[in-house]
């Protein structure tokens, strides 16, 4: 059978969402940011809420998210996306407002804004792409960098005693009464992509119900920062990141669904 018999409009089963612009993504080959972008836009498209959605881009590799997502977006100062989103949402309570942030952005400089937006239960969605490193600025150590992991500012590996512990922001904010749905996902494999998409759907549902904040962490690779090939980085991620940042729902409908204590200690 000739493939041209297959490649026909009526046989189309997947194509890139229309809500991604035509610009070539600025990300490194194999970077999870791209997959995450596509998924969010797919959900916005499926829900038909392009005109009701306002996104907030961070400072980090995804600073240019507004070049790629075909929705109205605001680029926030480093770490302040949750405050920016709060400002928007409070004045436009019927819009869907989300932030898209990296781990340096959300868990280092933006810690206070993250915690307090979650604690206030702002009816926004936070997408948190955790790649354990500062990708944008050249692979420096992030608060999420694993013990012993090398980065340009921990060239001999992260030393807990002098550099502190990797932080589990998601487990922490899950405990704040303002969060309703908290989950940790990944996008390196097709099965994960499917789960993540469901999670994103769920997050938008929560936002619609205005019951509080939805928080979707996506553990992702930064192959450039980790100095690996994309494929190797995904394997390394499974072997090293997932044990410390286990995937799955943490809080659903305002109830913690995981034994956090054993996880945290």
């Amino acid at each position, binding site marked *: 059978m000739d493939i041209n018999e297959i490649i026909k409009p009526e046989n189309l089963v997947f194509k890139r969402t229309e809500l991604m612009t035509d610009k070539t993504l600025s990300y490194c080959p194999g970077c999870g940011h791209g997959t995450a972008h596509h998924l969010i836009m797919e959900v916005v498209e499926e829900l038909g809420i*392009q*005109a*009701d*959605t*306002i996104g*907030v*881009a961070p400072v980090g590799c995804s*600073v*240019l998210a*507004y070049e790629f997502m*075909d*929705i*109205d*977006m*605001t*680029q*926030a*100062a480093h770490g*302040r996306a949750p*405050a*920016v*989103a*709060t*400002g*928007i949402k*409070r*004045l*436009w309570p019927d*819009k869907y407002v989300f932030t898209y942030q990296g781990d340096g952005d959300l868990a280092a400089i933006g810690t*206070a*804004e993250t915690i*307090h937006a979650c604690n206030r239960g702002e009816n926004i969605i936070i997408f948190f792409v955790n790649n354990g490193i500062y990708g944008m600025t050249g692979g420096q150590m992030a608060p999420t960098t694993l013990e012993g992991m090398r980065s340009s500012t921990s060239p001999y590996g992260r030393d807990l005693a002098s550099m502190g512990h990797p932080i589990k922001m998601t487990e922490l904010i899950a405990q704040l009464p303002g969060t309703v749905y908290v989950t940790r996902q990944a996008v390196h494999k097709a099965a994960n992509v499917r789960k993540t998409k469901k999670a994103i759907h769920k997050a938008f549902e929560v936002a619609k119900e205005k019951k509080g904040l939805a928080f979707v962490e996506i553990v992702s690779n930064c192959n450039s920062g980790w100095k690996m090939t994309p494929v190797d980085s995904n394997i390394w991620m499974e072997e090293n990141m997932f044990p410390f940042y286990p995937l799955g729902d943490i809080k659903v409908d305002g109830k913690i669904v995981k034994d956090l204590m054993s996880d945290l200690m």
Partner: protein
Amino acid sequence: MSEIRLMKGNEAIAEAAIRAGVDGYFGYPITPQSEILEYLMMERPEERTGMVVLQAESEIAAINMVYGAAGTGKKVMTSSSSPGISLKLEGISYIAGAELPCLIVNVVRGGPGLGTIQPSQADYFQATKGGGHGDYNLIVLAPASVQEMADFVELGFELAFKYRNPCMILSDGLIGQMMEKVEFHEQKERTKDFDQSWATTGKTKDRERNIITSLNLDPELQYEHNLKLQEKYKRMKEDVMFETFNTEDAEFLLVAYGSSARICQKAVDVARSRGQKLGLLRPQTLFPFPEEAIAKLSKRVKGILAVELSAGQMVDDVKLAVNGRIPVHHFGTPGGKIHSPDDVLKAIDEKLLGGF
């Protein structure tokens, strides 16, 4: 129908904001301006006009809430005092860079550092030269009465939207804490049909997406953007505002703004009663600065004394306007101490008249 009240300057700002149809206020407590947030919370503006008021977790959060909300085309504001404004400077630079209209109130207190909570004018440079990074300017209004605290809210938003530029009301603890009578306009409804063509309100099919950003990785684009900003700042000159007192026949001129101008007014009265031909120019806009008016006067008077509650900041702008034509002196009281009319008179005698 207008209404007359006896009010603190801070309260007047808050009441004026509700009446001006402001959409949102985001702030964090700090003396001597906490009354703004407190008054708003007490007034339940969500019931009066639907105005949103939120106490943020910090000044940084507050200014970034303003940034986000301003980017949607709404009328939003924040207020703080000196240390809090310093914390907001990254955000202010972003807002200026992204060309968003908004209102920022600084009720200045004595510095540097934690300083005092007493009135000061030592944040002039920060307000007018861009305390944050990069080449940007705020529109800076300097109220000298409780009435102007109220009036400048509406004026500030008008100018902010005219130029799509952040506007600062640079007040101080004296104007913020004093009570005077103040006349209010009738309460306006919040604007519904504002220009949102550039704002992030949700991309509809009939337009390209709107983006609020100050980033231009290509320096060539950022250069162009800066030139455009500079053009805008030049255009603002058409909105320069100032008041003069007794300048017609003045031989010597005081230049002072805000609370210091109030004190100088009294000094002029006393000096006149002594037969000294003293006049006062009071900038109401600090940016744009009334440089032409001062330059013009500098051709008629023999000397100028800039009087500030600071170690000497606005005096530089006076000097730049005068460009060496006549002597420009400075009298200032930094740190939160307030000079009295007598102190000013003494300085006039020593510096201005003594020099001749």
